[in-house]
């Protein structure tokens, strides 16, 4: 579920190459102000990497580790049950 949410969030941005092409197209049809106004603004990437906030990274790490710990616990319990059924020491 977390993976799917992450994928969905990541894919919600317009593709940079696509927006650049749109800009080129918009330049050629600059006279049509209605079309130009309707086209979304181009997102310019800054020249340097902006490090994600420590709090954002910490929160992601915390949430994922808690989920993994919960999943691990669940699997551990299922493993114990399955081992008892199979007669494994």
């Amino acid at each position, binding site marked *: 579920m977390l993976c799917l949410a992450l*994928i969905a969030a990541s894919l919600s941005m317009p593709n940079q190459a696509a927006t650049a092409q749109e800009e080129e197209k918009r330049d050629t049809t600059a006279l049509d102000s209605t079309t130009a106004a309707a086209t979304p603004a181009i997102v310019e*990437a800054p020249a*340097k990497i902006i490090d994600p906030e420590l709090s954002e990274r910490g929160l992601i790490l915390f949430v994922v580790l808690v989920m993994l710990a919960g999943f691990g616990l669940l699997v551990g319990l299922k493993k114990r049950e399955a081992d008892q059924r199979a007669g494994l020491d």
Partner: protein
Amino acid sequence: MLINVISWIEERLPVQSIKTFFIKKNVPRHRHSIWYYFGGMTLLFFVVQIVTGILLTFYYTPTPEKAHESVMYIVNEVPYGWLIRSLHAWSANLMIGAMFIHMFSAFLMVAYRKPRELLWVSGALLMFVVLGFGFTGYLLPWDTMAYFATLIGTEVPATMPVIGDWGVSLLKGSEEVGAETLTRMYSIHTVVLPLVSLLLVSFHLGLNQLYGASVPVGTETPRKPIPFFPNFLYRDLLSWTLGLGILIALATILPSGLGEKADPLASAPLGIKPEWYFLPLYQSLRMAPAEVFSLSGDFIVNLLVAIGCSVWLAIPFLDRKASAGRKSLPFMVLGIVLILYLITTILLAYVLP
């Protein structure tokens, strides 16, 4: 409704035989059992590579003008883009690490002996494919370090007679490292190698399922083996949970950086080093004398690496004692010396200026 769907599928597909094929495997239990987990761990990181790699291709543009900007865009603008790129980079390193542990443990446990020869060969081929992934993926961010490291890396085959120039032009696609090289690296990284690796992984896993895990030579197995499904699978899931925890911790605490955009006209910066898994080759080339018996040192190193790789691939057919279920001392020594050499050269490459 669901029962009808299941019976419709069962009438048309050999579901029961497929299920039996996957369930029948048992995993032996002994004091070296821990090494069995590294194959599954390699597979886990390979899956992470596929998922994150596909996501990155949605935004990445493989041209010298746009490549660096598109990576910058992924990291700064795409929601969690920095995390996906970081997961991709770290899982690549962890995958290669887990793969080396899996491969050397299989070697030292003589797991390549009859009837698992093809399991070894497919695994060794996968190692070359994985290293190919590392080499072709390194240039893609198009930053200074990636550019100049690839410039040096693509010149490595040049010392080889006959095929040297052909090898260099095959890697570069032109005289210089430029747009052609980037396109070539990108298509190999995202199309050719994934297809080859999927075929090899399927073959490797199919054979593993057929023959099961190998018991190391001379190891007693007094304990009852573990049924793979569901008992060992639960153990695998626990190890994957741990692996994912380590991966997410590395990706969030140490997110992947990006250098300045590559400038082909600039002079190469000091201290260019490849990724850690290419350091043994890098360090060997650095340590090699300029000339030995009128042959260039680089040529000798490349020749030895080519011979070494061929021998490594053919190990099951060279180790005659293995098929008789015995350990061969020369091969054990070879394996240990190789492990020590790889570790030493990696450390030397980091320590020496």
